[in-house]
């Protein structure tokens, strides 16, 4: 296990709903942008392609990765697609990490996208709900925001939080997205506001499912992303000064139905009775532990060691729940942690300066890769070039955490990236 695996480059498309560009053109654009950053990179370098795409329902196209792959000219190069719900991007990155770590390949491309603007928002919600147990939850009228709201409401009660505490994450990520020219918030609804969003705006937005309102929820999007995962030898030679090392990688799993985790034996034996219940993401905690261990980070000190994080804020509440699952705060200090704005740019662990899912957008198959690329830009000092300004640039960051999250917390990955 001595081989070090790196992210040597990558790019995202703008995200939008609707947006007019095909999946193959999205990935081609990402490759071209990557070549601008690392001119040495040629498509001939790619030895293996991992595609990241969630729902074939949106395109009414099975195996859409086959279209992208031959469009890129890569016939003969081995490929497959990873599909793992909202954690599809993180899982594809994980697969690429394994492929390089194992010694099988030196240069692996990870390409992801989603085309959710092919259907209406309510139809899109129903498509995504097909990733819940359709025999029970989806039929009962549930869609993901409803399941998350039921989890968030109990979490809110048990931690004595208010709706306003969740709203902080919602405004933070959207307002940071304004500094990001590719973000869906900036390219879309921000044009109406032309000002920072406030907690009051969130409180006044329409009810989605209590305690979540419209601005507590992420965006449905079209968008694509690409990452180049390589050996350190390749990265040093072709992308010197512009690569990061994946020092930790964790992937874990939980139940598909949130109601099945009140007393699941597999969790009870790891964390004791009554965990995670419907309030915490056990797969986030356990994959976080794996990543921390691999990177030599003491769980209790994780908050001090991580300088910037891009995490899966599908909902403002889930961002908060992730803080706790990753050991950044606990039941006792969570309220202060939130109200002191510790995860804002001026705090000690800025979270989602790229805008996150609520600000940048959530084209599912591209999302986890987007998060990794934003973290990669931070650690390689490319933010001032990629964003409008340095407002969302975490200077001198050495260590970043990337989190990707699926289902009701059903599959979650965490990565620790470091400067070489």
């Amino acid at each position, binding site marked *: 296990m001595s081989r070090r695996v790196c992210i040597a480059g990558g790019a995202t498309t703008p995200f939008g709903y609707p947006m007019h560009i095909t999946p193959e053109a999205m990935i081609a654009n990402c490759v071209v942008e990557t070549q601008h950053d690392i001119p040495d990179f040629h498509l001939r370098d790619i030895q293996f392609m991992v595609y990241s795409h969630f729902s074939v329902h949106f395109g009414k196209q099975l195996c859409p990765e086959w279209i992208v792959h031959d469009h890129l000219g890569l016939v003969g190069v081995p490929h497959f697609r990873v599909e793992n719900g909202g954690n599809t991007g993180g899982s594809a990155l994980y697969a690429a990490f394994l492929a390089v770590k194992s010694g099988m390949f030196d240069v692996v491309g990870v390409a992801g996208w989603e085309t959710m603007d092919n259907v209406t928002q309510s139809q899109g919600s129903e498509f995504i709900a097909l990733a819940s147990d359709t*025999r029970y939850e989806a039929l009962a*009228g549930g869609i993901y925001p409803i399941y998350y709201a*039921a989890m968030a*409401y*109990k979490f809110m009660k048990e931690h004595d939080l208010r709706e306003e505490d969740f709203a902080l994450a919602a405004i933070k990520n959207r307002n940071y997205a304004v500094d990001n020219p590719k973000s869906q918030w900036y390219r879309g609804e921000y044009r109406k506001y032309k000002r920072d969003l406030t907690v009051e705006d969130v409180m006044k937005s*329409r*009810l989605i*499912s209590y305690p979540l309102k419209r601005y507590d929820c992420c965006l449905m999007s079209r968008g694509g992303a690409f990452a180049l995962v390589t050996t350190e030898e390749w990265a040093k030679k072709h992308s010197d000064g512009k690569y990061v090392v994946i020092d930790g990688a964790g992937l874990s799993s939980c139940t598909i*139905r949130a109601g099945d985790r009140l007393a699941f034996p597999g969790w009870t034996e790891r964390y004791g009775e009554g965990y995670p219940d419907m309030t915490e993401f056990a797969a986030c905690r356990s994959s976080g532990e794996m990543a921390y261990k691999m990177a030599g980070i003491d769980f209790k000190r994780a908050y001090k060691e991580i300088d910037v994080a891009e995490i899966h804020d599908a909902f403002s509440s889930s961002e908060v729940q992730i803080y706790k699952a990753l050991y950044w705060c606990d039941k006792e200090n969570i309220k202060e942690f939130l109200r002191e704005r510790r995860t804002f740019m001026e705090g000690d662990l800025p979270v989602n300066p790229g805008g996150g899912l609520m600000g940048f957008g959530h084209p599912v198959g591209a999302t986890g890769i987007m998060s990794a690329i934003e973290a990669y830009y931070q650690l390689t000092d490319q933010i001032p070039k990629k964003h409008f300004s340095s407002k969302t640039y975490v200077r001198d960051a050495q260590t970043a955490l990337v989190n990707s999250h699926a289902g009701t917390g059903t599959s979650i990955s965490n990565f620790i990236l470091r400067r070489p």
Partner: protein
Amino acid sequence: MVEDKRLHKIPDEPVEYPDKHSNDFRGEVKEWGFHFCGYDWDPAEEQFKIYLHYDQLYYWKLAEISKMARGFLDGELWGTQCPKCGDKFFPPRVNCWNLDCELEKTEWVRLKPEGHVHTFTIAGWSGKSSLKRLPFVLAYVVIDGCKTAVANELRGLDPWDAEFGMPVKVVWAPKEQRRGAITDFWFEPADGWKPSPMTPEKERIKELCQPVYEWVKTLK
């Protein structure tokens, strides 16, 4: 074939299904397969958009959980229980989840149609097919001592009156409307339960619900 009592039996083909109700609730739904409805063209941006409709009938065979669906039709709630460790499940699991039980096959048990709310939410938005019944309460209910909670609608109260831990009962749809699905029943407050007085939080939820009621009225 390996002999092991944990193995699920697969019926010999064909299964005849002599009691047929395949179109009882079909309404106007048709299978089109691929159907190109039309297109749009933007000459300035040179953008072309196609309107594709695609629909298909699925045949979900419930197989070893068929007893649950039959129970729904008959107004009976059936869960499963592991004979080794005693864990009881609804929704039913056909093998035990406990790794030490080594995939022990569970047994069907009739559940008392009552439970308590583990957590809940008041939905103001949902999937396309559920918009007209907004706002509704979706509750995760632990039924009759199960180790799991099941999500279903909680009716028979104003949405803002729902409470954590409140006792609920299972209420069945009229027999002729049941179709062997989870929507054949919902939850209602247990007999004798009374809502608590209004609180600022309940007022807040009520206020959030008002525009949802108004919006639903505008739906065709």
